[in-house]
């Protein structure tokens, strides 16, 4: 296990470590993160570059364990039962070189009654041929509340193959709120695969946003199984593709118990020669369950566009503003 306190960073460390850390902090900032936050003693942080754990800082109630593997890192993140973590836990993952592979095998255990937010920033600023695989197992304990926000920055080359995969179990009364955003830099190839099981009275909300250009490929697979009574689920997918990019969305929501409510909401905006595909799957196994879906795929809404044109914007600027707003 490698553990390093970020407060000591850049002093007393080997030059190579310091260089790597500086590059990661720059990339972290490009991904929308605040490097200052990584310096605060009250903020739990984990910084991983390639297969190296550059920094790990625990706070009361939050335990972070990480060990280097040949091509990645295995991490275990534990939030103690009833812990109410005031400041978001910051996770910083990335690959700085143009080529490389990073595999993160992560186990999250959010204890019963705990409340915590995670802010994950994943940066691949120079990627020409980089593969990033995240395999996460997330357990949200009874009445626990986990908000997980993941933002990506991929640089201009489109050479990133990103595969975030998560198996999530939300126990009774627990809440899992997740936002995945890849709207800066080229997407490259993105294949999201989340599977979530929600117990009685639990909540799962997934928001996925991405903007594909050139030959980017986006694939979003999300399965939410509402297994316990009164469980609730929501998926919001907001994708925009232009040029020759493609997007595919396969969302599935199962209503397996009385009183569950599920909704899938997908908007995909298509421009130029881009293509979008959406396949919602609704399965209801209980006559007191309700699952709905709505999808809008195609060009920018004409009325929205004309409203912006009437303020003097040209068409490209107006479309961009609408798309940026949607994936914001």
């Amino acid at each position, binding site marked *: 296990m490698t553990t390093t306190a970020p407060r000591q960073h850049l002093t007393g460390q080997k030059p190579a470590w310091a260089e790597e850390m500086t590059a990661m902090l720059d990339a972290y900032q490009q991904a929308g993160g605040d490097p200052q936050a990584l310096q605060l003693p009250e903020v739990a942080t984990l910084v991983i570059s390639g297969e190296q754990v550059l920094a790990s800082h625990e706070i009361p109630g939050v335990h972070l364990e990480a060990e280097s593997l040949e091509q990645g890192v295995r991490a275990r993140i534990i939030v103690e039962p009833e812990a109410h973590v005031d400041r978001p836990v910051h996770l910083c993952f990335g690959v700085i070189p143009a080529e490389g592979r990073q595999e993160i095998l992560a186990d999250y255990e959010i204890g019963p009654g705990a409340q915590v937010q995670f802010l994950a920033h994943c940066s691949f600023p120079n990627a020409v041929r980089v593969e990033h695989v995240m395999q996460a197992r997330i357990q949200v304990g009874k009445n626990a509340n986990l908000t997980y926000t993941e933002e990506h920055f991929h640089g201009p080359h489109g050479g990133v193959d990103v595969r975030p995969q998560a198996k999530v179990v939300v126990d009774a009364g627990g809440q899992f709120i997740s936002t995945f955003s890849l709207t800066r830099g080229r997407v490259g190839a993105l294949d999201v695969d989340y599977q979530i099981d929600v117990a009685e009275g639990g909540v799962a909300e997934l928001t996925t946003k991405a903007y594909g250009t050139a030959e980017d490929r986006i694939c979003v697979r999300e399965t939410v199984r509402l297994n316990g009574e009164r469980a609730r689920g929501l998926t919001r997918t907001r994708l925009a593709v232009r040029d020759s990019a493609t997007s595919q969305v396969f969302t599935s929501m199962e209503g397996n118990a009385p009183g569950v409510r599920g909704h899938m909401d997908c908007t995909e905006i298509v421009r130029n020669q881009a293509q979008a595909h959406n396949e919602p799957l609704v399965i209801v196994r209980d006559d007191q369950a309700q699952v709905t879906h709505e999808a809008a795929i195609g060009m920018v809404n004409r009325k929205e566009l*004309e*409203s912006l044109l*009437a*303020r*003097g*914007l040209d068409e490209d600027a107006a479309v961009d503003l609408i798309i940026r707003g949607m994936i914001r």
Partner: protein
Amino acid sequence: MSAPLLQIEALNLRRDGRLILNQVNLSVYPGQVHALLGLNGSGKSSLAYTLMGCEGYAPDSGRILFDGRDLNGLSITERARLGITLAWQEPARFEGIPVGKYVGLGLANPDREQTVAALEAVALSAKIYGYRAADQTLSGGERKRVELAAVYAMRPRLAILDEPDSGIDVLSLVEIEKLIRRMAGDGSAVLLITHREELLATAEAASLICAGQIIFSGDAMEARQYYSGRCRPHLESLGAQPWDTASPEAQAALASNGSLRPTLVEQKSE
């Protein structure tokens, strides 16, 4: 009086084979509030979209002159850059675009003070609304005010306000009347589209439109009397247009004299 800022001449618009605007003539002068009054379905909004150059609203014949320039063939953006803008009757909702940003879109150099002032002009606090998205979370009335603020901030030469009063409560109506006067005071001409005769108090001139035809044009108070005396009772008794252009009688009238009710047209010179 000076030359008209907006001059519409013999404008015809057909959609899906149906005559929506029929030989419309109308003039709006610089700094003037000109009300366009008509019942639902009379062609008011269609005229607004035609003036703005919206898709599907290219006129079949006639001319629209703005400051002497023919708008035919100009895009919405080009018209907006000439100083024309439109406040939609049912404004679009924008996911993720903050109200403050939306209001400042029409400004050459977006400036916080102007945005704040525009929001205050429609009785919205920039502190509360500035960072909220102009999306479904706003009520109909709030979104409408935001639309008016965006138009006001732009300081257009011609503001087309499509039923700014619809979906607005009585108290808000007073604010809207104030805003219309303020726009005119700042030099904008306003084409005020409404079916609420009370709003005519803010206008100097008015036109009545019925079944796509202008049936009266002239003083706002005369228009009000005309409307309340002849159009309103019809609306209340039938709940529909006095003259349906699709009816066999109307089509026959159109074929014989090119107009539905020529006797009602009382064009008054400015």
